[in-house]
């Protein structure tokens, strides 16, 4: 598989957007299940109450990959990791829009052979179009 061509053809363009309404109870449960102790995440009455730092990592778009993206794996891939960049607080009642693109495609060789890493990036903006977070999801597929 020609990774350079794949990358050139499929990275850098937006292929999906999805909206999410942020619920107070979900913010609290996410924070408390993760052992958060900061009142700004665990106390809905706190003046600066906000979603936990990595909260937007729970959102996924309607599509994981662009339409007609070539099939790489013989079987399903696996989740190799996530990177979350925090930019601004997410508040209860916000409507967050996630825009998806393929940020990068690269190859590594592991013990079980070659692995193709597809970095799926979602940029999240609130109803005021302010950037709140960027989440990169590294998916691994084995040809």
């Amino acid at each position, binding site marked *: 598989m020609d990774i350079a061509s794949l990358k050139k053809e499929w990275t850098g363009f937006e292929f999906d957007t999805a909206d999410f309404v942020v619920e107070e109870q979900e913010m609290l*449960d*996410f924070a408390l*299940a*993760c*052992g958060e102790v900061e009142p700004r995440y665990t106390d809905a009455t706190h003046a600066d109450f906000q979603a936990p*730092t*990595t909260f937007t990592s729970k959102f996924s778009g309607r599509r994981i990959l662009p339409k007609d993206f070539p099939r790489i794996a013989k079987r399903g891939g696996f989740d190799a990791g996530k990177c979350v960049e925090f930019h601004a607080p997410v508040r209860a009642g916000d409507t967050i829009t996630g825009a998806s693109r393929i940020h990068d495609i690269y190859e590594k060789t592991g013990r079980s052979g070659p692995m193709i890493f597809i970095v799926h990036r979602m940029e999240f903006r609130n109803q005021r179009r302010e950037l709140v977070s960027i989440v990169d999801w590294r998916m691994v597929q084995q040809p």
Partner: protein
Amino acid sequence: MPAPEKKRFEDVSFGEDLESGSPDVSLETVKRFTRASGMKFGRFTDHEFARKEGLPGAIVPGIMSQGLLVGMIHRWAPGSTVVKIDTVFRAPVLVDSTPQCRGVVTDLDADARQVEVDLTIVNEANETRVLGTATVRLQADNPQ
């Protein structure tokens, strides 16, 4: 209960260990997380289902592991902001196990008042399951 004292940049030293701890990854807590996250996969909430998928038991969602590491950072540095966290899900963390979250300060940026922290979650056999790095912004010396 009074709020814990905020950690200042000046309080942090290179090589400092974050206080490690064993997070709650009980089935009940993982179910709470999956409900909050809209996850409906049995591999996270049902040991028997997970075994049928070839796993040793139900597994903690990767994004919950990431959240557990952020929680550890906030316990170490109250008032701090995790501006970036990058985690690699190397192997599953099992539900109802007793993993350990660990962290160590590996870089200090005085201009940005930020520190880099290397992070790991290990299992009972001290095998690394999750690893990563975080950039953490700390309070100013005289916060307003």
